[in-house]
């Protein structure tokens, strides 16, 4: 199989008490691309993410990442291998400042995270790097603000900065633009394009304009199964896809 596939699933299946949320999904994400996973509500996109990052264990199937079988790895180990996710519901540390949020991610590689006898002053050596990351996502002036007080769009930006702090080879973004205003979307889109220059991005996104603008490849999921795959032009012409989206209720379709 081609060496430039960074993440591959074969026959990935997840059953919840008889209900099959993800069914026989085979996915191949090429290194260095932006790959979008789309589909109507309840299609199984988040479940897929949870399977890929080991927050859930698959009922059947296999996952390989950079040539290693990660089907039964632990979620923390997945992150350590360079596959880092964000969450559909904004995942920040609410009562830590923006700077501290990013610093928590930087801290792990410092190797002092179990040092309960040392002063936290040690962590100040990370402030410079954390500050740079905040600048990169446009949060420079928010560094001392607790995350809980940031507007929604800024929280998502903080989340991306925190993810970037791990210098992941691959980022999984679950609806990074959900709930964002127009301006935030523009900025985040530019940000994703920028950070995707030297890494792979797999993202779930409902905003079709964003999907069209950013993605190299799109996989459409419906009722847990892969419905179509290809470029935006190919996928949007696919009658099955149109059908699936028409059939789903109340779906924003750009």
């Amino acid at each position: 199989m081609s060496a430039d596939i960074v993440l591959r699933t074969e026959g990935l299946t997840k059953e919840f008490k008889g209900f099959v949320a993800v069914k026989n999904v085979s996915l191949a994400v090429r290194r260095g691309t932006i790959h979008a996973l789309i589909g109507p509500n309840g299609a199984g996109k988040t479940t897929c993410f949870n399977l890929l990052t080991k927050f859930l264990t698959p009922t059947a199937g296999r996952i390989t990442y950079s040539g290693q079988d990660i089907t039964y790895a632990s979620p923390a180990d997945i992150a350590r291998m360079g596959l880092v996710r964000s969450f559909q519901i904004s995942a920040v540390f609410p009562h830590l400042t923006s700077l501290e949020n990013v610093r928590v991610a930087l801290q792990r590689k410092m190797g002092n995270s179990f040092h309960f006898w040392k002063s936290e002053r040690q962590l100040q050596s990370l402030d410079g790097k954390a500050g740079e990351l905040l600048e990169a996502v446009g949060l420079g002036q928010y560094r001392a603000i607790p995350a809980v007080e940031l507007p929604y769009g800024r929280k998502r930006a903080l989340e991306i900065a925190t993810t970037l702090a791990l210098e992941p080879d691959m980022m999984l973004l679950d609806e990074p633009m959900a709930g964002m205003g127009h301006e935030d979307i523009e900025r985040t889109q530019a940000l994703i394009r920028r950070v995707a220059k030297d890494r792979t991005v797999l993202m779930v996104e409902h905003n079709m304009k964003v999907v069209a603008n950013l993605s190299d490849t799109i996989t459409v999921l419906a009722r847990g199964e892969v419905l179509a795959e290809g470029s935006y032009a190919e996928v949007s012409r696919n009658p099955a896809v149109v059908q699936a989206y028409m059939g789903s209720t109340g779906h924003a379709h750009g």
Partner: protein
Amino acid sequence: MIAQAPAIAAIGTPRHHYAAFAVMVALAALAQGAFGIYPVFLAKVLCFALFACAFNLLIGFVGLLSFGHAAFWGSAAYASAHAAAKWGLPPELCILFAAFVAAALGAVIGGFAIRRQGIYFAMITLAFAQMIFFIALQAKFTGGEDGLQIPTNYRRIAFGFLNLRDNATLFWFVLGIFLIGFLVIYRVIHSPFGQVLKAIRENQPRAISLGYHVDRYKLVAFVLSAALAGLAGGTKVFVTGSAALTDVNWPMSGEVVLMALLGGMGTIFGPVAGAVVLITIEEFLAERAGAWVSVIQGGIFVLCVLAFRRGIVGELARLLKKPL
């Protein structure tokens, strides 16, 4: 914006923490020196204060509710009394041994409990604590119903020169141990490790997704908490002169929850205040109110949960707009 949100403690010790610490030490010293309160009573309060601080390290800074902390306090008390009565070790070594025993027990119980969340975690810790209680009740070396007394001929000299038969000396000795334990906890909270604990408490899935093996951090925190509870329980033996079944029984686990709750969970000084209030109530109402003490405690519990969630120090911190 959100004015009520707790202010974020910037890195480094804030000045008002030094002040609060000074006030706490001064009050303890004054209570013994100037107000002429019975030093043995004060020493007992300090033991419980350390116990409550150790418990609070888990509930307040990791978000884990242990309902079995009597196991650590109690088994440490037995270990300490045993080392004194059977081996004739000096007090400081008895206490050190007790802390080690509690830490080892913490590693075992924590190893089983740490993966569970919420009420399941509480139930497992409770179940283990009841097992320890059962052992204490049945085994020979614990003295069953009688408990373990420190014999009258035991040489109560700490570090070779502190005569603990003298009540004032005993008080200073216990204050010293309390302060060591308190400062250890303060450092743990304000360490690189403490920062990760905070992150786990704030958002566990996110901490995992950043590559932290959160169970390992929780286990280390659990063992630290057990060791410090053991430090307190082991010291207590030299204050009351014995280890008894009440030390390992479940109401003791409940009491430490109440102390932390009343003083303010997740605050630094709260558990100390909670212990002072509760032990004082118990001590002075025991003769006057008898069984009503439990009712009063129950009332305090209900009041805390319903109207007073932040606890004494938590409310104070809110008024002062400073984390305490």
